[in-house]
């Protein structure tokens, strides 16, 4: 599976508890995948392992046959880390700067991405003044301009109202449509239903 993700026998133990217990998973390089399951089932840990932020105790995570490079993965989290004191466009531009764009190019790309997610008029606003839904869309925009082939989203719609949730989901699905792999950990059935595939995680392994 060229460019896709392959997880083989992934084990992760945290605090003496087997959070991931021999996960085997093949994911296509393009599309949207929802990871669902009860709290504590290992959804977030699975995403962290995929992103290379957490080394598994056993097993391998490969992308296109190679270990995952953290730069190939963009993150969107429940409380997505954003530079609160900086404007939305500055935050999004970070994603482009990280892949080597000039400042001018990064700003242009960031504005386009924000426009595409309906935040063009909020581009110059400091992130700390944006609503939760707007912040999540800023995070999605950053992931978009980062051009990382894999976007992992950890409960991106938690604590959002229905309207904000729909816009964030649309944004994530737009990323998948742009030719990336979007992996979403969620409790929200609406979000899962919108994805191409659903992986149900129970007690640390796909059901």
């Amino acid at each position, binding site marked *: 599976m060229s460019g896709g993700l392959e997880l083989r026998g992934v084990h992760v133990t945290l605090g003496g508890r087997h959070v991931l217990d021999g996960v085997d998973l093949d994911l296509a390089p393009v599309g949207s995948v929802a990871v669902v399951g009860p709290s504590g089932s290992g959804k977030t840990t699975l995403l*962290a392992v995929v992103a290379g932020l957490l080394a598994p105790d056993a097993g391998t995570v490969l992308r296109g046959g190679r270990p995952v490079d953290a730069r190939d993965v963009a993150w969107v989290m429940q409380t997505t880390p954003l530079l609160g004191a900086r404007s939305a466009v500055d935050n999004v531009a970070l994603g482009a700067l990280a892949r080597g764009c000039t400042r001018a190019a990064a700003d242009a790309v960031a504005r386009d991405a924000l426009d595409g997610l309906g935040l063009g008029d909020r581009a110059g606003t400091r992130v700390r003044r944006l609503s939760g839904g707007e912040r999540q869309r800023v995070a999605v925009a950053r992931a978009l301009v980062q051009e990382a082939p894999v976007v992992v989203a950890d409960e991106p719609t938690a604590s959002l109202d229905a309207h904000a949730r729909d816009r964030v989901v649309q944004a994530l699905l737009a990323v998948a449509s742009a030719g990336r792999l979007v992996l979403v950990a969620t409790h929200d059935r609406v979000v899962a239903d919108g994805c191409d595939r659903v992986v149900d995680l129970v007690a640390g392994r796909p059901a």
Partner: protein
Amino acid sequence: MRRARVVVLDEALRDLLARWLLTTLVVVVAAAAGASTVLLVASDVDRVREVWDAQVAEGRFVHEVTGAQGAGVDAASCAAVGAWQGVRAAGGRTATTPVRLVTAPASRYDVAAVTPGYVAVVWPGTAAPLAGEVLVGPHAAGSTGLRPGDVAVWAETSGVAGSARVAVVPADGTPRDPTADRQLLTVVPATGTVDRCLVDVDPDHAAAVLPALSSWFDGVAGSPRPVVDLTRAVDPQSALAARASGPWWALAAGLAVATAAACWSARRADLALLRLLGADSGVLTLRLAAESVVLVLGPALAGVAAGVVVAAPALGHAVVRDLVLLDVTRLLAVLAVLPLLGLALVGRGSVFRVLKES
């Protein structure tokens, strides 16, 4: 590569500007640390230096050598000491004659014949009177009304009269030999004996000169001893070692470091975000170094510069300059390792955990 560095520095500056209030706070603390280190150390050391200089002026390093059993000291030997390296001047009285001045016949004064180095010992920097001239001690001048340019006329108790032009009247009395304040001094060649040999020793050479002085007069005179009471003298080395400003540089550095560290800790998630976006430890170090320069090192240096301007008069003295330089160097050395501290504070640990906790 260069462009990547420019981007990192540009981003660092943008972040600092975006958080201008926090930035200003850290900058002010760092500038205050730099300025206060200079000002406090300069003020503290200069105070010790002033006490020391006052003691030296009073005669802390003026020693007297008296002849055995009240006998005098060879005047030529005494004058020879004045030419030693590390001796500023040496001399003594060869004779003292009681007189009554025509302008103040009711009081008795002395006309003292002194060797050429004596005036320089008693009133450093005062020109010695030439032949036919006298130096009138300030107390004698005050009670007789004699001023430079006047002619002093006197009569010895034996009836012999004398006169001389008043060349010099020192402004202040001398603690080095208060008797001279009430005398008229005439300079004579260093022959015969002097009542005692006064030697003004350069403080920097005292350790070598004093033993040599003892040897020089060994067997013919007593040991050299200070002319002033040293029981209340301040030991400058102890005073400098115990100065209140001694630990200030460490305190100032601690305050600046703590403020910068608090600033970075508050942005732990921001820096973790940069790591998430692919910033490696080199990029983070460059970023923290840039922030250290803007937030702490630059302002601290500016504070030091401002302190130097304000404390310029005190810094004209070598001892003040040296100690200020030492403490400022210590302060800046601590501040220079701030990026490493920042890296340890915010550049380590699991990015995932930091972001989850933030």
